[in-house]
């Protein structure tokens, strides 16, 4: 890419590129911070089960792109008094060996101030951020402040995104490109959408930044299927549902181990 010489990859991206180089498919589980008292224990357990990075949801009152499962987890976390500051304080002592990437909505960032929020992520040892309601045209200020703080901003490419636009998004995205697997909100689906494979192919044509597909990836079989085209997967609702149902941390981690096993076989 023409921007390559000036491009700072950052810790999240170099880690994921390294793992990909080793021939490994990337597995990024999602956990809503604060959804239950042992959530940090869950994060450590999914790392032990083979996660390459973990996406940590900072709960927001109006999670527009989330389906019922992540909404319920966000609601539970807020009911328990979870704040962005408390989440970051917990993460700063997490001591996990893979990069952490937070996911939250832009009002949480904007309320804190982009510069302050970016530095608070860096201080907590967070390597990346996903802000799904901040599309390319609105992301400039945040991306600059996050970049200054050494935090990678992961941008999203959707099934409705043209290839030309996907190229511009990928050029701005750091860490990885989040490929939205289907039009719709987060949640489990019985079948992998064909759009998931199309999005992965579209992103790969325009960048060598790792592409991970999320939204609608709920089983080991679907993860393996989509990784025929993608570098990895983000799995959220399928894990969070197990946690909402009261599965102990090691049982939930067992599901992540199952995903790991399936990806390693590809």
């Amino acid at each position: 890419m023409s921007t390559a010489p000036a491009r700072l990859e950052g810790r999240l991206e170099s880690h994921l590129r390294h793992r990909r180089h080793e021939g490994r498919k990337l597995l990024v589980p999602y956990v809503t911070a604060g959804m239950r008292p042992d959530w940090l224990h869950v994060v450590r357990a999914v790392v032990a089960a083979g996660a390459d990075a973990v996406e940590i949801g900072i709960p927001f009152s109006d999670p527009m792109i989330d389906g019922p499962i992540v909404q319920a987890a966000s609601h539970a976390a807020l009911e328990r008094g979870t704040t962005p500051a408390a989440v970051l304080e917990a993460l700063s002592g997490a001591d996990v060996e893979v990069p952490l990437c937070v996911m939250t909505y832009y009002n949480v960032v904007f309320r804190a101030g982009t510069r302050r929020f970016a530095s608070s992520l860096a201080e907590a040892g967070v390597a990346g951020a996903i802000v799904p309601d901040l599309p390319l045209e609105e992301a400039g200020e945040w991306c600059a402040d996050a970049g200054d703080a050494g935090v990678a901003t992961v941008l999203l490419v959707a099934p409705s995104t043209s290839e030309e636009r996907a190229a511009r998004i990928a050029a701005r995205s750091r860490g990885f490109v989040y490929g939205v697997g289907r039009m719709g909100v987060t949640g489990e689906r019985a079948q992998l959408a064909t759009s998931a494979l199309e999005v992965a192919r579209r992103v790969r044509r325009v960048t060598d930044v790792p592409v991970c597909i999320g939204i609608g990836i709920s089983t080991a079989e679907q993860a393996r299927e989509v990784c025929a085209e993608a570098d990895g997967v983000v799995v959220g609702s399928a894990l969070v549902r197990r946690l909402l149902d009261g599965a102990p941390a090691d049982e939930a981690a067992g599901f992540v181990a199952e995903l790991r096993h399936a990806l390693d076989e590809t």
Partner: protein
Amino acid sequence: MTASLMGPPDPSGRFGSFGGRFVPESLVPACGELERAFAEAWGDPGFHAELDAVLRDYGGRPTPVTECRRLSERLGVRLLLKREDLAHTGSHKLNNVVGQALLARRMGKRRLVAETGAGQHGVAAATAAALFGMDCLVFMGAVDMDRQALNVFRMELLGAEVQGVESGSRTLKDAVNEALRYWVAEVEDTHYCIGSVMGPHPYPYMVREFQRVVGTEARRQCRELLGADPSWVVACVGGGSNAAGTFAGFVDSGAALVGVEAAGGAAMGHGVPGVVHGMKSFLMQDEAGQIAEAESISAGLDYPGIGPEHAHLAEVGRARYEQATDAEVLEAFALLARTEGIIPALEPAHALAWVVREAGKAIALGDTVLVTLSGRGDKDVAQVRELLS
């Protein structure tokens, strides 16, 4: 007056520093498509002719301006009402939905999805869908469905499907979230018919343009009645569409523009800048950026945000935003009924309540005041009966 006020927003959809398009990537192309389709339609005399004809022959436009002789005498000011309560479906909401439904049809969409608070926008959307032979799905907070059961039945009579929203505070803001979530999945054949001057660009601009007819008519009618512009132009504000449409007609006049919020849902009064539902505007929220729940007797004003253009009008000082309490609103509701034989909706009763309170104070005795009576009170009669007993 600044000529650029209440014109088109900048290319990013901003009015000053407010507005924008804060939506998930999945919806960015759809917002762009809508922006282009609206620009094309709004520049097409054929589209205007069709819209004007429907609003005239079906919607009952122009609505009259009524001079309130008995109430004026009592307050010591000259009070005029822009009678949107007399438009078909009983509120200003029809102006916007007819515009959006015609646009949706032009774009080849066959289904309208809408959010509603008090039910007025939902009823209007269901009406437009019936008129143009489209499907209609309305999201409504479960709390509001209880408060406005009759409007739920009206929407169903009109052939719409009403889906209760059980998430969050189960009111208008959650209905917006749910409508947006639905739209992401069904954007191919569905148009999201937003009910107010809110949401991502181009909605705040487009809905204001569809409501501009209120202000344009009222300006002309005031001149006929008064021989001049009124000194004050007052409208209630939740998201702020009737106020935006009214203000658009008077922004280049000498009239003072006043938006009246519910004291329990006052984004300008109690909020700070933030981003939700695709726009940057004033929002009621906590220190961490969690959106607060509005609380008002009026389901239509139970919204923690406000349209971004209002935030801009306040910032540049062209409009001011005041509040009315539930008690003041109930008093104004009964006062208009007894003195003028008009039962207003609880929403515009906020605008009246401010005028009643400020006549002889902020409003000098003898001043002329135009209030947009955005809807009729039939939907609220049962609730007010409970509150007064």
